[in-house]
């Protein structure tokens, strides 16, 4: 994906320069949330209908079912600049497709344990079941996830370091771009 410079570069939460000390105070985490179309996405819509406020740091990515969420998306997002990832689906037993969330549960449980084993803070990758009627739970969940990730601070990745470092930025494609902290 090509990098797009916009004339409002500073407005996007994702575009916040996270590494300068000055920015640290106003730092906003970027959180990607996968939401299944039938439950969580409609729960989020319901939160909208009820005008429930929650932090603007969360962007929802609609998928048909939590069973569609490939753990590789999560890993990729965390590697490319998301500070936290949330995966949401129907409660077990309520899946529109009968069983998708059961498979998701197994996969993501094992994957979450693997990520945490290799050093990821547990707060950065979370999974929650939120039904279409649980607008309140949706608001509370994203609010809490935001707070937890904010407390953890920015997730350091090679891409970020490369962009923050003018020398490295020029040689972003070279190997050994710097060790993660």
């Amino acid at each position: 994906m090509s990098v797009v410079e916009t004339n409002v570069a500073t407005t996007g939460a994702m575009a916040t320069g996270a590494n300068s000390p000055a920015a640290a105070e106003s730092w906003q985490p970027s959180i990607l949330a996968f939401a299944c179309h039938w439950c969580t996405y409609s729960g989020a819509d319901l939160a909208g209908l009820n005008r429930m406020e929650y932090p603007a740091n969360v962007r929802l990515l609609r998928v048909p079912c939590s069973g569609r969420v490939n753990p590789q998306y999560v890993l990729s997002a965390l590697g490319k600049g998301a500070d936290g990832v949330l995966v949401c689906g129907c409660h077990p037993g309520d899946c529109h497709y009968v069983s998708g969330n059961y498979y998701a549960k197994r996969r993501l449980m094992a994957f979450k344990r693997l990520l945490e084993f290799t050093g990821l803070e547990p707060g950065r990758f979370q999974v929650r079941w939120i039904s279409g009627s649980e607008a309140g739970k949706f608001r509370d969940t994203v609010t809490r996830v935001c707070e937890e990730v904010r407390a953890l601070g920015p997730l350091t990745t090679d891409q970020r370091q490369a962009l923050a470092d003018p020398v490295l930025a020029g040689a972003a494609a070279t190997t050994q771009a710097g060790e993660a902290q």
Partner: protein
Amino acid sequence: MSRIGVIVCHCGSNIAATVDVEQVVQVAKTLPHVAYAADNKYTCSDQGQQAIKEAIVEHRLDRIVIGSCSPRMHELTFRKMLSQTDINPYMLEIANLREQCSWVHKNKAEGTAKAIDLIKMAVAKCDRDQPLFTMSIPVNKRALVIGGGIAGMQAALDIADAGYPVTLVEKEPSLGGKMVMLDKTFPTMDCSACICTPKMADVGSHPNITVKSLAEVEQISGYVGNFEVTIRERAKYIDYSLCTGCGLCETKCPTKTPSSFEQGLGLRKAIYKPFAQAVPGKPTIDAEHCRKLTTGKCGVCEKVCPLGAIRYDDTDKVTAETYGAIVVAIGYQLIDWGSIYGEYGGGRYADVISGLQFERLVNASGPTEGHVVRPSDGQEPKSVVIVKCVGSRDPEHGRSYCSRACCMYGAKHAHQYLDKVPDGRCYVFYMDVRTPGKGYDEFYMNTQHDGALYLRGRVSKIYQQNGKLICQGEDTLSGQQVTVEADMVVLETAMVPANDADRLGSMLGITRDKDLWLSEAHPKLRPVETNSAGIYLAGTCQGPKDIPDSVAQASAAAMKVAVLFAHDELESNAMIASSDVALCNGCGACVSICPYSAITLEEITLRENSKKVTRRISKVNPGLCQGCGACTVACRPGAMDLRGFSDEQIMREVDALCQW
């Protein structure tokens, strides 16, 4: 290279109040492949849609991103709009700027920033949109009904009356199921045979219904509108085209064996009709007991048959046919109480009988011609104990659920016994009395007035002493231990799924619950549909119920079939999974994971590296796939992908959001 049009909607002030729409449009213009970006006051209005159509022509757009309300609101509206243009309706992405942005964030700067990100994601995804097409699936307007009990017969009759051909498959020699074994039906006490056998006759003579008795469904493949079904009709050893059902063979047959229709209380011949009004009204030979077929000696029926209809060399007939819809009505069976209730004698006492056996005992055409007598000695029982919830509501021994009909037929049995043996005494042990239904509670109260003594408690032990059955139990209302000496005990046993339920369920892709009842698609709103499109449930195969409920569900299932058959063609889902032949290594991980049995492994031969190669690959049936995408993650080789939510599209969205 794609030419994307981006339209950002104000939604009056709904979006514009907290999102700087103008700024969003300006950013959108700078995004790659965006050829046009504009705002609109009300995009969903006629004028708004017209403006998009014009922009498509003017700017040669080939795909559209709309930043507006939730796609759950207007995705279909805008797809419909695109179908009136040259653009495929699936070349559309919607950024949810209202429900998930303007309505929930008050800070305009934050809202605008998020709106920009959402538009970026939508543009990135849209850039990889592919034209998608629905398939039209022809509908074979022929229905298959599995099971010829009251539910199956009702469904078959309703579908046939709607003008569609129906094949009804029954595994027993006759239609009628459990209902035709019953003596009378509660609460009206009309004779069960009197209301059931006319239905059987109607089914047997309906021009649109083909009855296959002694038959079972062996294999099913295909999908809604196009089920390929293999049916095995077991050998009857009689040429039904010649047989007139005169019954001479049955009179002369020398072999007798216990009758399953009479619940083992009576005998039948080896060539037999299970009961007088059986449909088809022609006999079959029971190969297991027929002397001719087991020892080669006898042949009496062949000698006496005036029409020469006996065929000792008859074999099973296997036929394969195509049906558009299937109604499953395989009913229930009674729990095998003997193997789990040792405290009730475990089947050792002849006079401890099941409710269904009692039905045959009181039936005028039953083995005792309706005289209530003890199976052990033929004496009239002067005291009878009825035990309810045998196997129901008993997670320790049997099942945890309530079988729903037993309270009523227990009351019916008490009433019938007291009617036939006026000087008899009848005790009913119960846990609760559940009589919801028209006239049900009145019936139960009348039974008490008849003299049935209801004791609230379970029976803990039944044993025989000096020719009596001693029933020990507790009357929990008085808190006392009670012992009742009975001449006969009737156990009102739990309904459990038919033996075939699990096999048939897995073959048809119907989920089973913890007790193996077949599961409906939604417990409230889709009570007769299953998760497999075109397959419906009727009667007790879905869960215990009484006759009126079974009939009502059967008619509902028939209506669903009629609605389906009102269309000549069905439109398949466009956003379905598909497997890339080049990548698929045939491991089959997707096959077992699919909840709709939509994926199969197929062997294909193709040229690879100028060599002919035969290998297995997975194939998605577009009529069955519902587009959940569970298979795509199970596919490690990345061969399986979901149209409309492809890996590439989702990864582009992730990239768009994360990279700066």
